[in-house]
Structures are given as C-alpha cells and as structure tokens.
C-alpha cells in the first residue's frame, strides 16, 4: 500500500479530469499518512511485545505487591505492608548480602581479566586474531544450565575434581556448598567463566574505536606501552566500561540459575541460606510458597529498585567524569 503510493508516477500534463484529480489527492493523502505514521507502525511490534511481556507484568506485579495474595485462593488489599515487612525480614537482607557478595566476587575479577585480555587481543602483532576472538566468546554460547551442572559436578564434595586436586597437594576436601565463602567462590567462578569473554569483546570493540593517531603521537613523544594504556586506553574506554558495568549489575542482581542448580534445585540456597540470592528469594516467596505471592511481588519490585539505584550511581559517575 505504502509502496504504490510513494512510487505513483507523476501524472502527465493534460488538464486533469475531476476523476483523476480525486485519485491524485487520495494518493497524496496516502503518501502523507505513510510519511507520518509508518515509522510508528515499524516500531510498533517492539512496543506491543514490550507491553505484553514487559510493561503489563511490571504493573501487575506492582498491583500484587500491595495485596496479601494467595496464588490459588483469595487476595486482599493491604497497602504498603509488604514493603515495610521487607525491612525487618532477616532473610531478605541475607539474600541482599549474598547477591552483592557474589556480584563483587564475580564482577571485579571478571572485568579486570576482560580488560587484560582485550588489551592482549588488541595488539597488532597478534596472529590468528579471529580465532582467539571467537574462542574467547565460546563459553557465552553454552547454555547456562549446562555450565551450572558441569561446575556443580566439579565442585562436588565426594567425587568432585577440585577436591581431588586439593587432595593432591594435601588440602582437606572442601564442602563447597556448606559455607558462605566457598559457595560464593564456586558460583562466581561459573559467572566468570561464562561472561569474561563477552565483556572482553565489548571492551575490545571500545578499544578499536580509539583513534590510532593518539597512540602514534604518544609513541613519538616517547610514551611506553604501559603509559599509553593508562593515559590513553583507559580514559577513552570509560563510557564502554560503564556500559559493561551496568550490564554486569543487571545480570548480577538477577543471578538465579547458577546458585539454584548449585543447590541441586533447592530454592533455599544452602541449608542456612548461604548462597540464596535475591532472585531466588523472590521465587521462594512468590512462586514456591503459594500464599505469599504478594510479598514475592514486593521482593521483585525491591530488586528492580536496587538495579535502578545502582545503575543511577554508575550514570552519575560517568557524568562527573565526562565534565
């Protein structure tokens, strides 16, 4: 419809009969409609899908969080009681600490390593560049469940590979899911394994966008590669870095599959909730316990607010540095 309207040939000279002129004006109308509205039509699919699977669930969750909601029974309006309950809920804070702990353990080493690897891959003398870039991305292609199951086996107490290696150097076997530090370490290692390559590639792309003449000028002035890295690469990479940090934040705050499978599917995350994350706590309250779905919805909104706060913090950081 729109195509025919835009490509309609200009009418030949000749005095236009009333019939032709009406057809022309209709063509003009279509043309104008096309120009005005088809952009909305093109972006509509995203907004329709977002509305159905993004906006609606969010609004509905907010609505649920103001109720005492039984998944398969009655519900009654209780205002903000679910949110006030959050503040005194020991297990919510426990999950928050676990989430941030695992987040720190997985994001900091991961980004440092990614930065290091990206810098290596950015070297001009490196051979088989494409191979290395592909290879480093491979772990990200593997399904998260497969990663979690394999790592779960490696970290087993009785027959696990890591405990076997430890026994070779005379260290007692570690009950990996029995303590906070060891379980956090195990879960972070899964996250690191999966996401380091991804972040490396993004940082690498950022590095390649830095103009080459900056480096050339620096080299002529006698700056060592180390100094070039600190004074050119890092400052120029800041926006990319913030982007990567925000993505990691969103992922880290929503961490769910790895700790769940590490706990053999137990939603508590360890017998004393040593590694129950916020997302797991939300699932426990909202889905597993049928009668506290409203409270689970409040936890979901709390997670959302935390992500917004942390991202805002990052944003302010980059604004300040841009000045």
């Amino acid at each position, binding site marked *: 419809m729109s195509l025919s309207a835009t490509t309609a040939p200009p009418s030949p000279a000749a005095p236009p009969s009333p019939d032709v002129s009406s057809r022309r004006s209709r063509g003009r109308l279509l043309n104008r409609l096309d120009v*005005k*509205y088809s952009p*909305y039509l093109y972006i509509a699919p995203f907004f*329709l899908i977002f509305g159905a699977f993004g906006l609606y669930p969010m609004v509905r969750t907010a609505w649920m969080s103001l109720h005492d909601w*039984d*998944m*398969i*029974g009655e519900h009654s309006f209780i205002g903000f009681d679910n949110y006030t309950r959050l503040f005194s809920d020991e297990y919510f804070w426990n999950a928050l600490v676990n989430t941030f702990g695992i987040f720190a353990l997985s994001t900091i080493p991961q980004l440092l390593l990614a930065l290091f690897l990206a810098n290596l891959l950015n070297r001009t003398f490196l051979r088989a560049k494409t191979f290395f870039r592909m290879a480093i991305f491979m772990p990200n292609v593997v399904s998260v469940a497969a990663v979690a199951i394999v790592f*779960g*086996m490696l970290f*087993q*107490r*009785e*027959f696990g590979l890591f405990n076997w290696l430890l026994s070779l150097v005379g260290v007692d076997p570690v*009950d990996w899911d*029995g*303590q906070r530090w060891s379980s956090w370490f195990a879960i972070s290692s899964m996250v690191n394994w999966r996401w380091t390559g991804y972040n490396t590639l993004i940082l690498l792309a950022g590095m390649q966008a830095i103009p080459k003449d900056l480096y050339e000028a620096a080299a002529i002035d006698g700056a060592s590669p180390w100094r070039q890295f600190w004074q050119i690469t890092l400052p120029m990479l800041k926006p990319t870095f913030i982007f990567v940090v925000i993505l990691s934040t969103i992922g880290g705050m929503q961490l769910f599959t790895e700790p769940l499978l590490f706990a*053999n*599917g137990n*939603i*508590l995350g*360890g*017998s*004393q*909730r040593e590694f129950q994350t916020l997302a797991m706590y939300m699932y*426990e309250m909202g*889905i*597993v*316990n*049928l*009668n506290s779905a409203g409270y689970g919805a409040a936890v979901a909104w709390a997670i959302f607010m935390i992500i917004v706060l942390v991202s805002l913090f990052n944003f302010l950081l980059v604004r300040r540095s841009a000045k």
Partner: protein
Amino acid sequence: MSVTTRRTRLAAAALAAITAIGGLAACGNDDDKPAAGEKPAKLVVDTFGEFGYEELVKQYEKDTGIKVELRKTAQLAEYRPKLVRYLATGKGAADVTALEEGILNEFKPNARNWADLNPLVADHSKEFLPWKWELGKAPDGRLIGLPTDVGSLAVCYRKDLFQAAGLPTERDQVSALWPDWKGFHDAGLKYKQGSGGKAFIDSITAVSNGVMFQGNGDLFYDKEDNIIADTSPAVKNAWDTATSMADISAKAQTWSPEWSGGFKQGTFAATFCPSWMLGIVSENSGAANKGKWDVASVPGGGGNWGGSWLAVPAQSKYPKEAAKLAEYLTNAKSQVEAFKAKGPLPTNLEALKNEAFTGYTNEYFSNAPTGKIFGESVAKIQPTHLGPKHQAVKENALEPALRAFESGQADKAKAWEQFTKDAKTQGAF
C-alpha cells in the same frame, strides 16, 4: 487537521488495536459448560512419575467409548508448578488430576478449586485404608481425592557390604538387628567398625522422615491446624533420633549428586525405601549391582513416605464423568493391575489381600517378597494428621536445620533454634 485531532486519531487507532487483541484473548475465556448429561468426547488425566494407568485407560475407552488422554510428567518438582498455573489461571487442568500427599495438604485450604466427589461417586469409605480415605477430605467436609497408592516404608540394604563388615545378610536376621531405632544405630556403629569407618546410612534427614511418619502423634500442626512444630513431642522424637545418627551418616542429601552417585560407589550401605523408591535405588545402582540389594523391615514397625490421590478440578467441564473415571482407576482390580505394571502400593483393602499382590517378588532386590513386606508394613501404618504446609515445613525448615547440624555448621541447640524459627514462617498459611 489540527495536531490534537491527529493525536486523538492515533490514540483511537491504538485503542482499537488493543481491544482487538483483548477481544482475541477473551474468546479463549468462553465458559461453555456443556448441557447436563452430555457425554464428553474426551477426558484428560494428569499424573506424575509412574502410576501404571496405560492399560487401564485403554480398557476404559473400550468400555465407555470415551477417549482418555494420559498426560504424564516425570518429576513431581515439574508437576507442581504446572498444577499451580492451571489453578491460578482457571484453565488448562486435566479432568482427573493426581495429587501427591504434600500437594494435597497444601491445596486443602483452598478446597473450592476441587470438585466435591461425595455426590458424584458411590460411598467407598469402607473399601480403603481408613486413614488414607480421611486424608482425602478437606476441612470443610468435601471429598477432594480418591486414594491411589501409599508409600509404606522399608530399609534397603547392601548384602555384600554388610557381609564384608561382618553383619548378617539374610533379610529376617537383618530385620531382627533393629527392632527399634536404638538397634538401628548400634547396627550402624558395628558396620562402621567392621568396614573401617564407612558410613551406614545416606543422611539423617532420611531418618527423621522415617521416624516422623510412624504415627507418634501430631507433627507440625495439631488437629486444628495450629503450628506446634516447636512443642510437638513427635517432632522432637524424630529430631533426637535423627541427630543421634549423625556419626553413621554419609551426609548425602537425598536427590543430590552425592546421593545418587553414592549408590554405585557404596558410600552408604542402607537407606529408607518406600515402595516407589525401589525403582530409584535400582536405577542409581545400575545393572552391575543387581542382586546385591535386599529389603528388610523398618525399625519400630511400619511407616509411610508419600502416596497420592485422584482429584477432579472444579474447572473440569465433565466433573461427573471425571469422577467416574477416578472411581474406576482406584478400584481394587485397577490398583492390582497398576501395581503389577509399575509398582505403586494399593490402598484398596481388597487389592491388598489379592494374591497377585501379596505373592509378588522383586528380582533386582534378590527376589525379595516386596508384596508381602510392604503389604504387612501398610497394615501397621498409623494415621498422621498433616497440616496445610507440612511439606514446606519439612523441606524448608526441618531438613535444612538437620543438614546444618549434620555438616557441623551449627550445634544441636543452634540448629533447633533455626528449625523452630523457620517452621513459624514456612508453616504460616
């Protein structure tokens, strides 16, 4: 055309689009209940694990001309969320739905989700194990479920490991080792000594499970469904018995990789077996260990772990015919057939007396007369009142606390404190 009208038009178009989508969705909502007495073309049955209904359903189709679709889900853990979704959204549920003990109790407070079977089927209350029948009723008196199977309880043990550690291997002698739980612990210590320090049982939560279901009184809830987890003598008894076994435990949590791997590796020599567990033991141990396992009786007589009911969701379009199908699947003849096919223990009194059941022997378990062993154990089961969130308190309060004690993360007092605190929140409904 002014800006405002253009905007209004756009908004109107958007609104129209949304209503169109909404209208489509609404079509699926139509509540087209059939006229009374109309015969359904098809009934759907939802089960988890193995109920052994394949042949029975074919027979039913032949007898009545009603097609039956059997929807099977392998794991209970996948089955429950599906069921919750059906109930929460009011659509998708099968006409006949299998409910496991824990799920049934959890669903009881919202009994209106289920059809009352009382007016739909004949009175069968005298035909089943009385306690099992009672559990199928909701607090408001409506009959939610017809009994299918019962777990019962026995001890599976490794003959070869027992022999190597100097313990008797013949099943009657082994049963005689542990008339009570004290005897079981002593046997465990003897095994540990004779095997050079190896663990005897898989975990102490398996023990607490066994003790709790021996019917020593109310567990986490009293008869009025008040939470009494911290004061219940039966729970304390299970707790004390379980914690006393920590020194002979392999600390392998049931269903964990350590646990399933432990069967092949021989990390433990005995475990508690409801009859449905036999299949899991043989699968985890593999063909190489065939004939090495045997079945003995459980310390302190009978016990029960698991078991199910058949229910008809209130959203079923054919409650009457669905109830008839459930009635057929739970009658004595069907229960014996199901047992022969896949092994769920009958709860129908007539089926329990049937020779095809009492004479059954299990080849994998050294030809143990499992029909006789479990049948006798069934008769000894004492009725236990399970509250609405029994399963949640057991899995998310009691067992984590026991595991924390077992692994040395908490001492006995600390672990008990953890349990009683969590029991209050997990048990609230």
